[in-house]
Structures are given as C-alpha cells and as structure tokens.
C-alpha cells in the first residue's frame, strides 16, 4: 500500500523541475469549486435582498460567521486580513473534507507538508510584518525578553526566542499535516484491508471523524492559532 504523493508530470523552469503532484490536482479542484461558487454568488448578488434566503442566507452566514470569528480571534483592527484568512479557511476546510467523497478519490492537499508549510510560512511572515508595523523597534527588542534588571536586553535569550518564533510555522504546518495524513493513511488502510462488502456504511463513521470532525477542527485550530499569533505580535504592552 503506497501513501506517497504521486507525481503526474513536471514543469521544467530552466534548470529547475517542478513536479505536478496529486496535491496540485486536488488544489486546483478545490480552487475550481471555490471559484465557481464565488462566480455564482457574484452573479446572484445583484438579486440579493434585505431579508436573506436560500443562497444569500448561506453566503451571509459564511461571511458573517467568519467575520465574528476574526473579530473574536484577533480583533476588528485585523479586518484587512479577512480576505486572506477567509481564503485560507475555505481552502483548508474544503481540502480537509474533500476525502469524504471517495468517488472523487482525491488526496487532501493538506496531507502534503509543502502545502501546509506554505500557509504556515505566510502566517510567520504576517506575524513579523505586523509585529514591526504595530510595535516598531519594540517588537525587535521583544526577541531579547525578558530583560535583565527590567531594562537590559538579554542576548542569551535571543536564540531561544528565535527558535520559539521559528517553531511556530513548523508546529502549525506539522500539526495539520500530521492529523490529515494520519486520517488519510487510516482510511486507506481500512479500504485496503476490509472486504468489499464492508466498504459500505461502516466507513461513514470513519469519514465523519477523520475527514469531517478532524478536518473542521484542524481548520479551526490553524486559523485561530494564526490569528492569535498575529494579534499577540501586534499587542503593545499596556
């Protein structure tokens, strides 16, 4: 039984070779679904009314729930990050639960570390950009905390703080990667080991846990942690 990420081709850019993997295919599929949904919403938006119903209800529920989530996690001053994290939330959620449809037989993009680390690195960059933007030199000084005698930067602690900062994207990416990959492997083992007649009904519970529950939970955890780190980086000492 092979759980490797399969390659379907490659793109050569000069001397570099980029593999086109299962993750790309699944990502494009997820992107396609989301873009189609967005186009439909954009077309129907002209007919949206004050009292929502049907598709409008669903769309408003999504956006409003996410805005409330963003406000609770990071605060209203980070609404400008809403577009990025809305996309991250949507793409990670859909990627995590895409395995619930066995007919499509797509491997969740989030079961590829290169995908999760990409999102985690964006979070890492945002943490430091926003930290410097909101706190300026104070944010750089915070790498030397706690200060000696309350005011002298502690050079010895800088490496530890640096490792702590670098650990954030690594832990973020591996947490989601590990959880989704474990679900993928377990589901693969189940389908590979049991007789055909047991592949109906019973997997529903496994999919409900490994794909739906774990997928939603991991999406929530990833987004909440990202927003919390960003919010903490911008928080001034008051």
């Amino acid at each position, binding site marked *: 039984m*092979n*759980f*490797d*990420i*399969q*390659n*379907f*081709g*490659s*793109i*050569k*850019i*000069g001397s*570099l*070779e*980029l*593999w*086109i*993997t*299962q*993750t*790309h295919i699944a*990502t*494009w599929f997820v*992107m396609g679904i*989301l*873009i189609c*949904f*967005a*186009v439909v*919403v*954009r077309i129907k*938006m002209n007919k*949206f009314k*004050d009292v929502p119903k049907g598709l409008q209800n669903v*769309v*408003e529920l999504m*956006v*409003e729930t996410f*805005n409330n989530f963003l406000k609770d996690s990071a605060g209203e001053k980070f609404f400008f990050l*809403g*577009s*990025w994290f*809305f*996309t*991250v939330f*949507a*793409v990670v959620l859909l990627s995590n639960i895409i395995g619930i449809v066995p007919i499509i037989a797509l491997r969740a*993009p989030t079961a*590829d*570390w*290169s*995908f999760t*680390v*990409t*999102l985690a*690195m*964006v979070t890492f960059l945002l943490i430091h950009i926003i930290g410097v933007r909101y706190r300026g030199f104070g944010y750089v000084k915070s790498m030397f905390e706690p200060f000696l005698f309350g005011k002298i930067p502690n050079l010895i602690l800088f490496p530890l703080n640096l490792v702590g900062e670098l650990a954030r994207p690594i832990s973020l990416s591996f947490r989601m990667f590990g959880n989704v*990959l474990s679900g993928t492997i377990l589901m693969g083992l189940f389908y590979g080991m049991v007789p055909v007649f047991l592949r109906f009904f019973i997997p529903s519970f496994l999919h409900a846990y490994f794909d739906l529950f774990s997928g939603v939970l991991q999406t929530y955890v990833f987004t909440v942690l990202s927003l919390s780190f960003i919010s903490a980086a911008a928080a001034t000492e008051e």
Partner: protein
Amino acid sequence: MFDIVLTAEGLSPGRLFGLDQQTLLQAGSHLLNVGLLAIVLSWLLYKPVRNMMQKRTERIRDQLDHAADELAKAGELKALYEQKLRDIEKEKDVIIDAARKQATDTGRRLVEEAKEEAETVKTRAHANVEMEWEHAQSGMKQAILEVSAAMAGKMVAAALNKEAQEKLFDETMAELEGTSWRS
C-alpha cells in the same frame, strides 16, 4: 533564460515528505495557487458580500435611528395633545361652571320676577275684591232701602205715627247692618 516544459517522461517516484529544493518549489507553486485564489475570492465573494452586509447594516441602523427620532417626535406630539386635552377639559369645566352660574342667576331672576308678578296679581285681586265688596255692599244697601221703603210704605199704610216710623226704621237698619257685617 527560463525554459518551461511540461513533461511526463522520466517522472520521479512519489514521496511522502521531503526537505529539499523540490519542497521549496512545491511551496512556491502552492503559494501562487492560494494567493491567486485569495485574490479571486476576495474580489468576487468576500469583499462584495461584506460591503453589501455593512451597507445594509448601516442602512438599517439609519432606519432605526430615523424611527427612534420619529417615535420621539410622536411622543412629544402626544404629550402636546394630551396637554391640550387637559387644557380643553379645564376650559370646559370653566364654561360649564359659568353656564351653571348664569342658569342659576337667570332662574333666580325669573323666580323673583314671577314672585313680583304674582304679588302684583294678588294686590290687583285684593283691590278687585274690595271693589266688588263695596259694589255688593252698596247693592245691598240699595236693596235694604227698597225693602225698608216697602216696609215703611206698608207701616205707613198701617197708620203709624212719625215717631214710631222712625224708631222702627232705625231698629230695622241697625239689625240689618249688624247681621250683614257679621256674616
């Protein structure tokens, strides 16, 4: 110079995890994909819907504020009308009191006038009675005189002397007057 070639020949075998240049390239491609998706979703879905909801919220808030203003104005008008109603009630009471007082005065005046008129009528009636009484008395005197004359005639006829006639006449008159006045 970059040379982009899509090929399926000599594919590397798949892998589960790696920390190399390929991982960086993969991450770059994923960043491109998700970044592109973020731009599209932001342009088509997230921002338009959020703006629409914000505008609707502001519009509803304005409507609520307007309704609150209107309610406050209505409250003020209601208070004003109630004050006017109270004033009207007071004015009504004043008018009714004045009318009642006027009616009482008029009634009293009418009663006084009626009493005066009744008194006048009574006085006139008394006068009439007096006049009738005198008229009746003079009629009676006349009748008595006639009767006396008749009696005298008869007595004369019976050959009475003058003294006896006068005595008789006086006694008769005295008796007549005494009985008439007593009755």
